[in-house]
């Protein structure tokens, strides 16, 4: 239809030429429906997963939830067993992970973007970090066992919360670095130039303009990385998250960081290994709880992001 017409031809044929034609953009509509289909599949898959877990774990979630949340592991029966130690252990591990991964990762990103930008060194480091993000978590477990549990056991005291947290920190570090690098690169140069233009030093430009502008994105990426750490079981099993050992005794909160621990994903793994349907119910219920926990952490990230974005 897009054949060039004379002005006279356009005038006489306008009504006809401008009419909407069915089938004019088949590829466009097909593409749109493909996208809708993919979205439905992705969200539907998650919805089914969540529904199955809730249904499977309903016995515990509906009747026995308080007991389940507040009691420790028990070998005797599924009904007695709870996930209290797992929740606490997961939160402690996540805290240690954050303490190690966030400052290191953000600092690395600042160096790469603001100081070494464009250099061959920075490009090589960045490429390697991107590759590290694809390394399977079990490999980090082996690294943690060799380095954090054995080599520096003077600091970590062996198979402890600290060793577990540091292992997961090594695992999520590439993610923290990459998201922070992207966040810093997204800060427009015009903002940096504006600050330099009124006589700011590099430190002043970074601390008062660039970091605040990138903060919300860095925060989001960091929390997503922590959420991933919360859900990891494999590396933690290697570095000694035991099942059920978490007797506080006289130990205060700080001492528990250098003691034995367990984590929710490890508990789920152990519940699922036990023979008998009632243990399966526990595994499903614990899965729902970890999902809620991850959701809560993400919610916190969104809340913090909105707060920081408004606050300038």
């Amino acid at each position, binding site marked *: 239809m897009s054949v060039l017409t004379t002005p006279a031809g356009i005038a006489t044929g306008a009504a006809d030429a401008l009419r909407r034609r069915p089938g004019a953009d088949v590829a466009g509509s097909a593409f749109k429906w493909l996208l809708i289909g993919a979205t439905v599949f992705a969200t539907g898959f998650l919805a089914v997963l969540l529904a199955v877990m809730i249904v499977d774990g309903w016995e515990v979630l509906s009747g026995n939830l308080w007991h389940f949340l507040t009691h420790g592991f028990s070998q005797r029966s599924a009904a007695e067993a709870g996930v209290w130690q797992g929740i606490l252990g997961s939160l402690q591990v996540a805290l240690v992970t954050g303490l190690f991964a966030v400052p290191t990762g953000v600092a690395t990103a600042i160096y790469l973007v603001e100081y070494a930008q464009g250099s061959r060194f920075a490009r090589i480091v960045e490429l390697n970090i991107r590759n590290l993000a694809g390394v399977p978590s079990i490999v980090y477990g082996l690294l943690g066992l060799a380095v954090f549990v054995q080599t520096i056991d003077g600091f970590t005291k062996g198979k402890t919360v600290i060793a577990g947290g540091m292992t997961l920190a090594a695992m999520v570090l590439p993610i923290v670095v990459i998201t922070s690098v992207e966040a810093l690169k997204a800060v427009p140069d015009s903002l940096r130039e*504006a*600050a330099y*233009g*009124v*006589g700011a030093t590099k430190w002043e430009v970074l601390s008062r303009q660039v970091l605040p*502008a990138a903060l919300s994105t860095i925060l989001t990426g960091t929390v997503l990385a922590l959420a991933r750490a919360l859900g990891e079981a494999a590396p933690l099993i290697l570095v000694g998250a035991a099942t059920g050992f978490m007797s506080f005794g006289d130990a205060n909160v700080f001492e528990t960081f250098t003691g034995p621990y367990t984590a929710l994903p490890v508990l789920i793994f152990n519940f699922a290994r036990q023979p008998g349907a009632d243990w399966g119910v526990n595994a499903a219920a614990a899965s729902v709880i970890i999902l809620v926990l991850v959701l809560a952490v993400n919610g916190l990230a969104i809340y913090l992001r909105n707060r920081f974005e408004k606050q300038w």
Partner: protein
Amino acid sequence: MNPEKALMTDESEAPEILAPSEPHTQTRIDVSAVAAMAGQRADTETVFECGDINVYYGDFLALRDVTLDIAAHEVTAFIGPSGCGKTTFLRCFNRMNDLIEGARVDGTIHYHGVNLYQDEVDPVEVRRRVGMVFQKPNPFPKSIYDNIAYGPRLAGVKRSALDDVVEGSLTRAALWDEVKDRLKMSAYGLSGGQQQRLCIARAIAVQPDVVLMDEPCSALDPIATGRIEELIAELKTEYTIIIVTHNMQQAARISDMTAFFSVQANEMGHRTGELVEYAPTSLIFTNPDDPRTEAYITGRVG
């Protein structure tokens, strides 16, 4: 720019604006008038003396052998086609090119006798004295007040004195009346023209000696442009102003001196800018020495 319009304006309007004493019809300036203008200029103090400035981006030469002086309390305009290196040159005056990866400046720029490109010079101190307004308004994502107060705070101005600095700067930038009731609100809520005046206020808040302007009106409508031009005319009494512009009428309206840059491509296709002509604005627009300048300002090229 529409070549016809440029041609028309240059012949019919420019002399009126630039040299009110000259009769309208005169298109050539007699020798004594030139000498008088040159003499006038010799009285003024020199702020910058540039000697053989060459700017490289990596291996390739972006600007070749520029030598010129900038006089105090004048508006100096840099004009020329895209890629001629005028913005590159402007950014030499406050060492903004330091921030560009791979950029290197050879030659000397003496600022009140001090070579800005010697090792002992701190670029941060240079930028406190030589402020800059950018092509696109780039306010900080902060309140109007904090945009202005940012520079003075860094310079150590006391909290108690900040209010006065903010009011004074906004007043001089002809923005105070429009924003005095919403100082705590986001600078992003301002219109484009207001944002650019805010950026000018921010630049003068640190009490610089020189203000560099890189096509400050290119993102603005004619009314906002007019306000900025009025502002430049007022600021000239206190500051030395160097402005890059694509708008030749603008250069003709507001500047005292004009430097015309041109661009040459070598056999590799690399484009290198060079200074063609530097003269009082009235001369450049009425009686340019170089045929390239004449071709450009009359709209035959560019």
